[in-house]
């Protein structure tokens, strides 16, 4: 009885505090339902890959603090396989001078759209490789501090443990050349990662310098172990990236540019090392122009150049483990996109193409989104890959597809 009355007394003390919290707090939520499917252009057969059928973002803010979660329900039509994913869960403190974030989160660095050499803070989810923005990234447990002073922004970031890309091993429907089984990774601690970024505005342009020290997001061949049999050894190389990006305006044109210098080294111990260290650069330049009739045009050039390799590996055998994913397809490519909206944004049209300037391969895409009523959208998109034998897009020709989907936002 005494315990109960003591409990009630505690509750009486806590209740006003709880009530105060609830009255001053703000709950925000949003989300979407996205059923859809993909069909091969070649024979109209279904492409059975998992997709996010539902997504929800919940934010709870109290004073200068905010807790945010972003979850998704992943589903595969063919076998009803499903998984609830907590993509992000982090707390942000907004002091007067900046922002502090701790938890599982997705970051974004860089100036260009989509193909950022300097944005290496999160692993990619290969299942969503052909989506844009944060959709294709995997949240990492990390802490970041951003300080604002006039036109200056200084950011520091710490990731306590490296995480690699989510790779769909044994996925028959997946278009890239991925082995059936996950290769045996060298048993080695992957360690911590950190980065800094400084951004400032000079005149009408934004400039940024960044540095990131971590491990590759993709594992690559580092050598061979001889016992018991000659076995290829793969691991995530230690890589640091020095980055620079800018946004500037010339007349009616918006220019975005980004370059990353990568220094990568093999710090594993294997019997026969194929690579000791290497350096390479990746860059992306983008020009945007909006026409009089509101058509947004964008041209992007993406390039990659290996500067040096020390080891038995040749430049042709070398694989980048970080940077823009397009660098795995080509050393020099050009993409072009055009988009516009009609009927008060009820109809969205977009077309895009990617042309490899070194090998004979290209990609064509088009999408239509129509919103008959507020918060509902019907999506139809088409992607076609073309390439000569031996190119990546040649292997992806059968992945050329039509995608049909419905979106409901709440």
């Amino acid at each position, binding site marked *: 009885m005494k315990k109960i009355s003591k409990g009630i007394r505690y509750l009486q003390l806590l209740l006003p505090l709880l009530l105060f919290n609830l009255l001053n707090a703000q709950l925000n939520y949003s989300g979407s339902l996205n059923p859809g499917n993909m069909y091969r252009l070649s024979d109209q057969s279904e492409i059975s890959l998992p997709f996010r059928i539902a997504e929800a973002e919940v934010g709870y803010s109290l004073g200068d603090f905010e807790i945010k979660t972003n979850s998704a329900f992943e589903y595969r039509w063919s076998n009803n396989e499903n998984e609830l994913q907590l993509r992000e869960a982090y707390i942000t403190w907004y002091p007067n001078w900046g922002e502090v974030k701790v938890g599982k989160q997705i970051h974004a660095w860089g100036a260009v759209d989509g193909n950022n050499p300097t944005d290496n803070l999160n692993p990619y989810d290969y299942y969503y490789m052909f989506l844009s923005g*944060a959709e294709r990234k995997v949240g990492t447990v990390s802490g970041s501090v951003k300080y604002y002073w006039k036109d200056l922004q200084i950011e520091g970031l710490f990731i306590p443990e490296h995480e690699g890309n989510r790779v769909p091993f044994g996925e028959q429907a997946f278009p890239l050349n991925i082995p059936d089984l996950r290769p045996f990774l060298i048993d080695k601690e992957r360690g911590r990662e950190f980065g800094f970024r400084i951004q400032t505005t000079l005149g009408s342009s934004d400039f940024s310098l960044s540095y990131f020290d971590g491990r590759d997001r993709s594992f690559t061949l580092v050598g061979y172990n001889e016992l018991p049999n000659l076995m290829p050894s793969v691991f995530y190389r230690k890589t640091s990236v020095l980055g620079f990006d800018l946004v500037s305006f010339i007349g009616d044109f918006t220019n975005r540019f980004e370059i990353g210098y990568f220094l990568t080294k093999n710090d594993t111990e294997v019997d026969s090392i194929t690579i000791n260290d290497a350096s390479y650069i990746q860059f992306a330049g983008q020009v945007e122009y909006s026409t009089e009739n509101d058509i947004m045009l964008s041209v992007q050039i993406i390039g990659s150049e290996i500067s040096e390799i020390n080891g038995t590996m040749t430049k042709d055998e070398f694989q980048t483990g970080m940077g823009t994913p397009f660098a795995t397809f080509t050393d020099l490519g050009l993409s072009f996109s055009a988009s516009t909206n009609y009927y008060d944004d009820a109809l969205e049209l977009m077309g895009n193409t990617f042309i490899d300037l070194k090998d004979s391969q290209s990609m064509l895409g088009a999408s239509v989104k129509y919103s008959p009523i507020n918060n509902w959208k019907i999506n139809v998109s088409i992607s076609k890959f073309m390439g000569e034998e031996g190119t990546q897009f040649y292997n992806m020709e059968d992945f050329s597809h039509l995608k049909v989907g419905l979106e409901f936002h709440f």
Partner: protein
Amino acid sequence: MKKLIFTICMGLGYSQTGFEIAKMVDEKPSPNDMSNKTKMVLTNSKGKSRSNAMMSKSMDGNKKQIIWFLEPKDDKGVAFLKIEHDDKDDEMRMWLPAFKKVRRISSKKKGDAFMGSDLSYEDLSSRDLEENEYKRLDDEIVDGRDCYVLEILPKKEAKSSYSKHVSWIEKSTLMGVKEESFDKRGELKKKKKYHFTDLKGYHVMQRVFVEDVQKQHSTEVTFTDIEVDSGIDEKLFQEKNLKRLPRK
């Protein structure tokens, strides 16, 4: 004293030049800061409507403004920051939650539509007094209100998408009650009508109706929960505040 000068000026009304009237409008007392909820209804030539909702905070006569989009739901979380500078190009940035990125956007294409509406970024920006020429036309009565009528001709440095505006300004409040804007070819492009309310001694805009006569399309913007001089901190107009909705 200011009031006395104002009354004398009003009494001498007709002798004032267009520039003097524009200067009086520019110098009339305005709130240090303002916040509101905004509903924007877009109506096409067939009478079909779509609506957007947003929350806005501004200061320095709208030279600094931050807007958080609430509806349609797929735009919820998108936010827009505008800072107008006197000595360099204006800054416009958008927070795109789907990309987790604050994206710097061009402020030079002032004629671009704001959120698909009939209001352009230029329509939302304050008009620099020195970047326009003002010509006074004959006074008119509009909806029972005695108005000055000004012809406003943007100079080259204004980089305007218009060739001319004709603005009706109520004499007693110095607030614009309607305006017609003409495109570069000199043809009528937009008709705007403004409605005001009194708040803390200021005349504050409550409703704007814009009709693009060439596109036969209209936008009605209604402001609710208006607050003025609530002491908004200048630090609000920073990138970090695009990322979270304010409490009110």
